[in-house]
């Protein structure tokens, strides 16, 4: 779950990460009042869950309350990558000496949180990482030992800071890790951390929370669905609300499988036979007929879908349950789109019997079924 900049900064502030004075505004008038409260030149920043807002004109300076009001009005009227801007962050403008990148991420290979840091922070950090990886300092945090002041100071030192600045940066790193750890974040980032004459200030903030850990962060659950705006398409949002694992694709063949790997392989096989998958839908383990029915219904209702391919390898998920779900959904929708089913495993015979009884054909291999689905979609 991705938090918006101002939400992430609220968390950062709680942990003592140094931030500029700021206020959130939902209307131009609020933006004007925010300026007055801050009492210094500001930037007005679109709060939106996608990158590239700067280039899209979503970040603008303002030197007077009136100017803050007018740029906020402009920004709040914008759409960035098709997303409405509901809030702006009005924030003290900083005199930048230098931009630093700090990130705490979950590293798959090292199986731990790692710190990434660079003195070449700012918008081009990905380029820095790609072209001059030696400018990125990487530090693995030992999960059993934790991340302590001297580890943080060591990272700051490797970045080339000494004395007071080393300590200040080390202190921010420790706070950032505390945010990452306690908030169950997959990604915690400050880019840029601005080096000013008075010390460091986090000018931007990213915080992506592990969806699996949301039960530990009840305060976020309410915002959960909303947070996917921009990341998910409207259909994906709808599926998310129904608790379906669904990814929208561009083709015309609806795909439902059980298990992420098998469902991906189903997409790939369809592609191999010249077809185009319209979606990825993984039933997960042990889906019951209702859940399967709900999934089938959801895909069949997609107007782009010309044929449906259900590929189930029965383990915990039972083939007879799958058959029931398909038949029920079809009946409910009174739909006649062609359906190809490949099923194997637990209660396979009964599932096939039910499907055949309802006039739905089955195949024994996913390769055959995929080929059939591609042909049906082309013929439809």
């Amino acid at each position, binding site marked *: 779950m991705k938090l918006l900049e101002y939400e992430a900064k609220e968390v950062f502030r709680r942990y003592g990460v140094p931030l500029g004075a700021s206020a959130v505004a939902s209307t131009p008038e609020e933006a004007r009042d925010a300026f007055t409260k801050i009492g210094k030149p500001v930037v007005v920043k679109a709060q939106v869950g996608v990158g590239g807002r700067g280039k899209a004109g979503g970040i603008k300076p303002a030197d007077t309350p009136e100017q803050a009001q007018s740029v906020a009005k402009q920004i709040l009227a914008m759409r960035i990558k098709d997303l409405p801007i509901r809030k702006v962050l009005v924030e003290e403008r900083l005199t930048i000496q230098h931009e630093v990148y700090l990130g705490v991420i979950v590293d798959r290979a090292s199986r731990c949180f790692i710190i990434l840091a660079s003195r070449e922070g700012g918008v081009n950090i990905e380029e820095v990482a790609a072209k001059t990886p030696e400018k990125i300092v990487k530090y693995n945090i030992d999960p059993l030992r934790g991340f302590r002041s001297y580890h943080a100071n060591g990272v700051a030192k490797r970045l080339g800071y000494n004395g007071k600045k080393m300590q200040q940066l080390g202190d921010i790193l420790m706070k950032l890790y505390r945010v990452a750890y306690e908030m169950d974040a997959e990604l915690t980032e400050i880019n840029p951390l601005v080096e000013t004459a008075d010390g460091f200030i986090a000018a931007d903030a990213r915080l992506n929370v592990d969806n699996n850990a949301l039960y530990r962060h009840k305060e976020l659950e309410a915002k959960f669905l909303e947070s996917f705006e921009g990341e998910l398409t409207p259909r994906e949002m709808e599926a998310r609300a129904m608790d379906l694992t669904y990814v929208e694709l561009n083709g015309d063949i609806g795909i439902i499988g059980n298990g992420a790997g098998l469902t991906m*392989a189903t*997409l790939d096989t369809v592609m191999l036979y010249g077809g185009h998958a319209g979606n990825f839908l993984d039933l997960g383990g042990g889906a019951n007929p209702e859940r399967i029915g709900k999934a089938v219904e959801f895909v069949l209702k997609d107007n782009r879908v010309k044929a449906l391919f259900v590929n189930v390898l029965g383990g915990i998920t039972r083939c007879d349950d799958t058959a029931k779900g398909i038949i029920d959904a079809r009946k409910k929708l009174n739909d006649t789109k062609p359906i190809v089913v490949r099923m194997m495993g637990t209660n396979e015979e009964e599932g096939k019997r039910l499907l055949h009884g309802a006039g739905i054909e089955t195949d024994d291999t996913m390769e055959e079924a995929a080929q059939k689905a591609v042909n049906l979609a082309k013929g439809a």
Partner: protein
Amino acid sequence: MKLINKETKVVVQGITGTQGRFHTARMKEYGTKVVAGVTPGRGGQEVDSTPVYDTVAEAKEKHGCDASIIFVPAGGALDAALEAMEAGMDPVVVITEGIPVRDTIELVARARQLGTTVVGPNTPGLIKAGESKMGIMPNQVFKRGSVGIISRSGTLFYEIAAHVTNQGLGESTCVGLGGDPVVGLDYIELLKWFQKDSETKAVALIGEIGGDAEEKAADFIAVGGFTKPVAAYIAGRAAIPGKRMGHAGAIIQGSAGTADSKMNALRGAGAFIGEQPVDVAKALKKVLG
């Protein structure tokens, strides 16, 4: 690294839940020596004639179990795994899906400290074909033979195992690594094990988008770390960058973690790459005869 065989005495943590109950029966059918179950607060009950205890320590004391499979819900899985490890269970197989990655990080770190083999989390488990199963894979798919399988996914793994069986090759030991970003085992650790395992003549390597575990495995094979034949299948060629494809770990980030990158690396290391799952079994058949 410790895997399993017919002697392995298994305790099932979370045995009283729907999944624990169901799969305990399937494992026993397969021949797994499931000697006890554990659910705190349910000590003294029985599940399908398997005695249930409140703690792993008790189960061990009474039955001398030496490996654990965990079906405990995500919120309790870390504690369950730590309990198993501290009681000396090895391997510990974590079937549970949806464990916060912070918990898995701690779990895996502790396993390394104690020298315990952890399979998963979010894994179908592992099986020694014809001897013992600690997992949720369908029993009928596997037949004793010579192909080792390593997979990040579940059902795709059964799919390919079924093809291997249909080709008359059968399987030696098969391990599901798990679909989460952080898991206890990686391909390389298992390739090392399979390299030494005399029953394994070749390996089917089933990967998917996300991370660079397959690329690292390819490097390991390329430098001669694993010398038996490898046939691979990588799922997710049709996936879109930035979208999680079901598994928490199956996501292409920027240009990293694509199926092409993985397939190219493995091909470069001399592995056969299947276009569709069945190809893997056919290629192995050709090699092993």
